[in-house]
């Protein structure tokens, strides 16, 4: 059997495409967690981004407004989380759960009028170069701006955390809010900023799903991707580059299930659909078994509230 080499390239490209929302949301959450805040509301922020992007695109007709609007929606909804956890010192886990439940409800409420409306075509770059290089052509060319941004993001995030002063401040706040505060850093402000940034990235991830990947509005369309993104952060041991690897594995699982169905592998479709969730659990177990490594790489104050008497 001869397999067209470009076909393999296309499969890899489709795996990358399905990894995009995971990379975006995970990199956002990674920054939030590095500042010591555990936001379990990723799924809720993502779905809000998905409906906001799609609704704005349909209403205004402008893709730019829609993309930035979705990010803004993510920021707005995460502001609720930031206000509750940082100003009112609420429990991170419970607040994150509330955010997810609320987000799914609100998105379905807004989305009622947008079910069944076809999406718009999203511009892609370098479409013409796809056939110029075998294998690599379909991988490198013909994608949306969000796609390229997503694959640059882990490197940008890594650079930001390791090499910039603000990155250092974020890490300091996450690892030891007390000493950061004694150094004159406004812990609350830094954490606010990191939460809102995480919201923006989750919003963008949602918009990618509803505007580029699918592209249409389907109720509950994030389907647990927000939770997988959270698992990816643990998988990466808070290292942005490893998010890339994890997201590709999960993207691969999603894509392979389609191809296995297509070539008629006799495995129940439900089992293939469950695969990403089962693999997430297995991966978490393998990573977490080494409790020392987890302890060393977890931001020390993750999930703990910080309150400074003034």
């Amino acid at each position, binding site marked *: 059997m001869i397999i067209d080499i470009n076909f393999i390239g296309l499969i890899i490209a489709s795996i990358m495409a399905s990894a995009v929302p995971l990379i975006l949301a995970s990199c956002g959450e990674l920054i939030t967690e590095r500042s010591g805040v555990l936001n*379990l509301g990723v799924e809720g922020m993502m779905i809000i981004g998905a409906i906001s992007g799609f609704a704005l695109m349909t209403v205004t007709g402008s893709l730019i407004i829609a993309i930035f609007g979705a990010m803004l929606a993510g920021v707005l909804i995460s502001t*609720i989380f930031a206000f*509750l956890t940082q100003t*009112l*010192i*609420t*429990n991170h*886990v*419970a*607040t994150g*759960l*509330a*955010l997810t*439940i*609320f*987000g*799914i*409800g*609100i998105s*379905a*409420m807004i989305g*009622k009028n947008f079910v069944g409306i076809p999406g718009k075509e999203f511009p892609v770059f370098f479409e013409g170069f796809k056939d110029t290089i075998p294998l690599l052509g379909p991988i490198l060319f013909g994608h949306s701006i969000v796609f390229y941004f997503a694959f640059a993001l882990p490197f940008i995030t890594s650079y930001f955390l390791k090499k910039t002063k603000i990155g250092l401040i974020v890490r300091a706040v996450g690892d030891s809010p007390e000493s950061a505060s004694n150094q004159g850093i406004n812990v609350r402000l830094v954490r606010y900023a990191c939460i809102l940034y995480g919201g923006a990235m989750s919003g963008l991830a949602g918009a990618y799903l509803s505007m580029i990947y699918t592209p249409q509005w389907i109720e509950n369309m994030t389907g*647990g991707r927000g*939770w997988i993104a*959270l*698992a990816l952060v*643990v998988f990466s041991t808070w290292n942005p580059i490893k998010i890339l690897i994890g997201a590709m594995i999960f993207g691969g699982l999603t894509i392979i299930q389609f191809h296995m169905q297509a070539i008629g592998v006799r495995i*129940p479709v*439900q*089992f293939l*659909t*469950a695969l990403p*969730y*089962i693999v*997430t*659990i297995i991966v*978490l*177990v393998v990573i*977490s*078994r080494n*409790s020392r490594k*987890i302890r060393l790489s977890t931001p020390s104050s993750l999930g703990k509230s910080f*309150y400074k*008497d003034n």
Partner: protein
Amino acid sequence: MIKIVKRDQPSRAIFFFTPVLAIFLTLVAGGLIFFILGFKPFEALKFFFIVPIADKYGFSELLLKATPLCLIAIGLSFCFKSNNWNIGAEGQLTFGAIVSGGVALLFYEQEGFYILPIVILAGAIGGMLYASIPAILKTYFNTNEILVSLMLVYVSKLILDYLVVGPWSNPEGFNFPETRQFSDSAKLPLLFEGLRIHAGIFLALAAVVISWFVFYKTYLGFQMKVSGFSLKTAKYAGYKGKKMIILVFLISGACAGLAGVGEITGPIGQLHREISPDYGFTAIIVAFLGRLHPVGIIFASLVVAITYLGAETAQIFMQIPKYTGQVFQGMILFFLLASDYLLFFKFKFIGSKK
């Protein structure tokens, strides 16, 4: 001038007052949302919170919805009190329903008094088995229970889907994704003629009584409380942490499994794809709103059950989308968490000093 001061000790009066405040604030915010959506706020709130329970039938429906919520929330309170974040009750409910449904199908077209107890027990065991996965992974592999229990929710729904579409689907069912109807001996008896409320409510009430006893009268309850305050203290006191983690997960799994049994052997009478409108997730809110206190949870389950009924009524009469129920549930939790601020801080009025 107003100054915010940290309280020396959390206020106990406010501890029980804030849930009421949270419900009030949710109503205000809900009215505002209805207004923005172009409905008359008071009329909408009336359809949401009063009309659904205005008659006998409505009240029975309220109890029907509150039963699984109460049962699951009681179980979750064991976990939350001891700092274990089991958020996968929906999966434990589903798996409990699968196991008990499977057993009920074994007794297809058979009658006998012994069938129902076996079916109920099977559901509790199913829920416990499913809850033991995150518990064991947490205790022996240090794995985050939040993510594991949540991932298992998706898996459980896919298992259910596979079974009702494939091997367990009704042979005479024209390929509908559902099993056969259970025999009458495998169904919970109805309490009143013409109403859907069934004997499952006694399971919930029993859970309330037992949990109250365990929380406040046993050594285990004390251990859970200490571990909830500080894991370090619990360790220092020599409590067997791992055993307790597994135990609280098993208890909450059993409760969720029983809630699943109540649904399929009560109002549904068979297995199909949608056996629970996310009771397992909503029960998390119920547990918090009820302050992890058995009696509080009873009230909370009734309040939150209204959001389910209200969403249906409001959709029928005012074409308000049914998801408003979820929005209300999310808001209740937001406002509850927010008003907890008053627990730890107080506003002090200070006269201007000269």
